[in-house]
């Protein structure tokens, strides 16, 4: 088993665990840190499965996109922008 294989297994396991925690957490805003862990694990999986220079762009694009979504969900839930 190579280091990359072990990293793949670990990232996959953490992603599954984080997915279960997101589903079980009742408080919407407290789901988001678990969702953050899920994004980290999936970003790792993308880079490990796509060892090509564009794989870095794909991993970063996925991560920034999912972070922006969490940011938007949290800000909307908190009342959105203060447009006074």
């Amino acid at each position, binding site marked *: 088993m190579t280091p990359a294989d072990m990293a793949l297994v670990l990232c996959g396991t953490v992603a599954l665990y984080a997915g279960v925690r997101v589903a079980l957490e009742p408080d919407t805003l407290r789901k988001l840190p678990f969702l953050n862990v899920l994004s980290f694990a999936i970003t790792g999986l993308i880079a490990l499965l796509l060892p090509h220079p564009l794989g870095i762009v794909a991993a*970063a694009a996925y991560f920034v996109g999912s972070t922006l979504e969490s*940011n938007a969900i*949290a800000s909307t839930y908190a009342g959105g922008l203060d447009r006074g």
Partner: protein
Amino acid sequence: MDTVLLTTVHILVAAAVCWLNFITIDMFFKLPEKGGVVGATAIARHIEAGGGSLEGGTMMGNIVSSPDASAGTLLAACGVFIAGIPGGLLAALLVFIGNRICHDRGYAGTTGCLTATFLIYGFTLAGFSAAEFIAGMVIAILSIQGISHVYASRLLSTIWKVRWG
């Protein structure tokens, strides 16, 4: 079997290195001080309502809301795994763009990515694989965001108070 054991030890060492890198840089850039966006502050208040600590919760909210040093460390590991130091530098540029997309004016993510790139490259010279750092960073973020928000936020607050009073 020996390679599995060696890789496991390497992943644990990598997790500790990644943890120290992102906590140090996030504390240096004062992430626990205030929420970068209203969403981060709201997450902090919910973590505090659940029994956690406000400063630690604010840092966790900031980590969720914009790519910080932890995201920088992960993407640096991905970059170094795929293309060595140039890959890590490309990742730093992408984190910088990601910060701007997420309305974050700070430099914690970019700085964390640059320090992690050279740190991880140094470890690859000592027999580590960058893939072990990807797994290590996933474990490091799991320890903060994915196990207990109450205890993680209290731990972060303690570190913050020791560092900045």
